């Protein structure tokens, strides 16, 4: 087995009697770019929520770098190196773009001295300039002071990705990062993620845009109705009969094939 | 015997608290909105009625005028707090907006009454101050008894209405899930004012009964009663009508007993202490969980 950074071992989750995730196991290899795909309602976002600690799991184990994080509260998991973005944008609407990005640094700045450091009073400080640089790298240099509620959708979407990258994660989980982006924005996003990948960050991506998945990811895990139905290189996924069947009748067939 | 006498007066004032508590619990349960204008509606009913008698209106008509004013005032509140917010922001329960507006209306109504009717405590010319009957050594005021029965009957009627009628079902569907209710064809613009009409009627009738029975009225008479009613609502569980009835009566009894045994100054501690304890330990109230109040507002 290759060196896996994140290991999902026979994990199950029920919501009021409904089995949303059913004994799913998969490994995310260190430095890989893994995609988690599947039809709507397959349980992809739930898997993200279980990894990041939004809900406790009912059964199974989650290991990060060999450490069992199953019982760890959510705010400790980001310290361990897990960071994520959200399917529906969940930026802090009343904070500016750069403040949202600085929130992403929080896991690295939890000492009292860092907490009482006046970020807003010392413009060029280490944290602020790091955040500004990160925004600039993502092509968002013009927006740092804007309150995010006033920014366009595509911009907010990318700020979320930048925020998630700020904690220096081992595993960066992105929930439909390309949804709603135009072609140019998707291209910029891909460059951003490839940059992170080159720095050694493992990517775990939920995405519907198969074009994007194929050009970014090397490994694919397919879920359907809470069960894993395929795991393997992204070059083979469109040849798998089970996957084709799961997608049959939905528009994704054309994409997958 | 004296204790029994206290119990009876506790139940009598408790009947008033019940009606106001129901008004509170209804708006919280239906709209997730803590409506602070309710004390003003209660007061408007009494003070407007008194004002009408001073210009020669018959006391019965004056009381009806008071209730009508309270109901109308409640609709004004709906127009400027709830409806506006919902139309403009999609969801009136976001932020503390309706709460703050209702505090604004409380201040407006109370001080308008001060401006127009003066700040002196007044006495309503109630026709039956001494209509009591004696049961052994117990003295029972007939109008108070009638009020208690009337209060309970009205609340009972209200709960029947919520359960059985089409309007009642529409109201409850909005309380449970506004979006689904809208999809199913319930018109929010038509249903929500009904909540406010009921609120106005409940608070107004409670104010009327209070005025008839206790006669001593002033511009701030609603505040004290509302505080007790809120305590009653919490005891019964937010959004729970039957809980509000029990809670209102419990508060009435607690108040009278505490005054009897420990004096008037101490009464705040047991009532608010009980309320705080319930909020912290059992926020759904004493009688299970019909409680709403989800998330921020």
């Amino acid at each position, binding site marked *: 087995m290759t060196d896996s950074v994140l290991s999902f071992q026979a994990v199950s989750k029920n919501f009021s009697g409904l089995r949303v995730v059913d004994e799913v196991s998969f490994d995310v290899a260190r430095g890989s770019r893994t995609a988690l795909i599947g039809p709507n309602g397959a349980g992809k976002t739930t898997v993200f929520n279980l990894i990041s600690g939004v809900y406790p799991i009912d059964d199974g184990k989650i290991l990060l770098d060999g450490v069992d994080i199953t019982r760890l509260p959510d*705010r400790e998991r980001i310290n361990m190196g897990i960071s994520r973005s959200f399917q529906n944008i969940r930026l802090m609407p009343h904070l500016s773009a750069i403040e949202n990005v600085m*929130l*992403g640094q929080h896991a690295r700045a939890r000492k009292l001295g860092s907490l009482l450091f006046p970020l807003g009073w010392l413009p060029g400080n280490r944290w602020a300039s790091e955040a500004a640089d990160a925004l600039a790298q993502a092509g968002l240099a013009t927006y740092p002071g804007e309150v995010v509620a006033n920014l366009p959708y595509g911009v907010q979407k990318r700020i979320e990705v930048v925020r998630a990258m700020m904690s220096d994660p081992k595993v960066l989980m992105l929930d439909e990062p390309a949804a709603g982006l135009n072609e140019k924005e998707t291209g910029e996003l891909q460059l951003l993620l490839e940059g992170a990948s080159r720095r050694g960050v493992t990517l775990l991506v939920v995405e519907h845009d198969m074009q994007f998945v194929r050009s970014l990811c090397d490994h694919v895990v397919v879920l359907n109705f809470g069960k894993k139905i395929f795991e393997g290189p992204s070059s083979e996924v469109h040849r798998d009969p089970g996957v084709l069947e799961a997608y049959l009748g939905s528009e994704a067939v054309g994409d997958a094939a | 015997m004296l204790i029994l006498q206290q119990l009876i007066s506790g139940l009598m004032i408790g009947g008033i608290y019940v009606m106001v508590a129901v008004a509170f619990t209804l708006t919280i349960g239906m709209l997730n909105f803590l409506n602070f204008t309710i004390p003003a509606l209660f007061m408007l009913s009494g003070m407007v009625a008194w004002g009408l008698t001073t210009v020669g209106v018959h006391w019965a008509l004056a009381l009806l005028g008071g209730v009508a004013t309270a109901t109308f005032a409640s609709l004004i509140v709906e127009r400027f707090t709830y409806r506006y917010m919902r139309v403009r922001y999609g969801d009136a329960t976001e932020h*503390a907006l309706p709460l703050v507006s209702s505090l*604004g209306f409380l201040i407006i109504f109370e001080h308008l009454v001060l401006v127009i009717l003066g700040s002196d405590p007044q006495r309503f010319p109630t026709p039956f101050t001494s209509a009591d009957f004696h049961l052994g050594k117990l003295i029972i005021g007939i109008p108070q008894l009638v009020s208690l029965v009337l209060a309970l009957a009205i609340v009972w009627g209200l709960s029947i209405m919520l359960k059985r009628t089409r309007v009642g079902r529409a109201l409850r569907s909005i309380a449970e899930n506004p979006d689904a209710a809208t999809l199913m064809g319930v018109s929010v613009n038509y249903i929500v004012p009904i909540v406010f009409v009921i609120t106005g009627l409940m608070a107004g009738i409670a104010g009327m009964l209070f005025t008839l029975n206790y006669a001593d009225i002033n511009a701030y008479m609603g505040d004290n009663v509302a505080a007790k009613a809120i305590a009653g609502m919490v005891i019964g569980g937010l959004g729970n009508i039957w809980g509000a009835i029990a809670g209102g009566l419990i508060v009435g009894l607690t108040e009278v007993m505490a005054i009897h045994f420990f004096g008037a100054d101490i009464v705040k501690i047991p009532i608010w202490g009980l309320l705080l304890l319930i909020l912290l330990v059992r926020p759904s109230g004493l009688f299970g969980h019909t409680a709403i109040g989800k998330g921020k507002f």
Partner: protein
Amino acid sequence: MSGYWTGIVAILCFNIVVAYSVFLPAAAGQLNLGAAGFVAIGAYTSGYLSTDVGLAMWLTIPIAALATGAVAFLISFPMLRTRGVYMVLATLAFAEIVQGIYINLEIFGAAAGYPVAAFAELDIIAPITILVILFVVFLMATRFGLSMRAVHDDERVASLFGVNTRMTKVAAFTLGGVIAGIGGAIWAHQFNYVEIQHFNILLSTFVLLYVLIGGTQTPYGPLVGAVFFTLLPEFLRVSNEWRFVIFGVIIVLMMVVRPEGLVTRTLVERFYGLFWRRGRTAVADR
């Protein structure tokens, strides 16, 4: 400055300080309708230390602040289990209980009130007020302030990014208590007399309104709200009752026209933008 205006400014200072005590929890998403309870504790504590113990004011005020903060810290744990309407009611209940206790305490004169020995001139009150303002403005500029605002906007996501949401809320509530204690001490030493009747729900309500009308998004909101509503009556040449009616009308209209408060983030950004646009983009371009 005439005696009349000195009195107004003293009241203004008190209102500003108490507004900030409500603002801190509000910035972290907690509505506190119990300011009067904390102010009462601060007022009685400083009054007692001044009259019965004979301490000087430079000791009574900080001790009152710490004592009130300690009470706030202790009750914050049960209090913060509640949210929304429940928290409004719980804080209100707390203030009423405090009132109910003090009105029965004979050592503090019960309902008759309690005299306070030391008198604080404006030259003591005003600097304290300015320090409180600066402290809150500073706090909101720190990473702790950032986490408070993050908790206000989305508690779940704040937690996912490593913010200890519970401790953030406890700290905001406790610091609010400390500042309320300072407000109470200001009151005690300014009026030399503490009557529990003053620390009623009306005070809690008005202070909460200053904060919500001023705006909770920036640390300048409570200042603007308190100044606006304290000074407005002075410029309205009508009777006291009409002033309150106008106050109520302004509140209702404000909620209709500008529900996020007078001072919003966007407004402050635009304001900065007028002067420092070049400096700001310079940061971004680096």
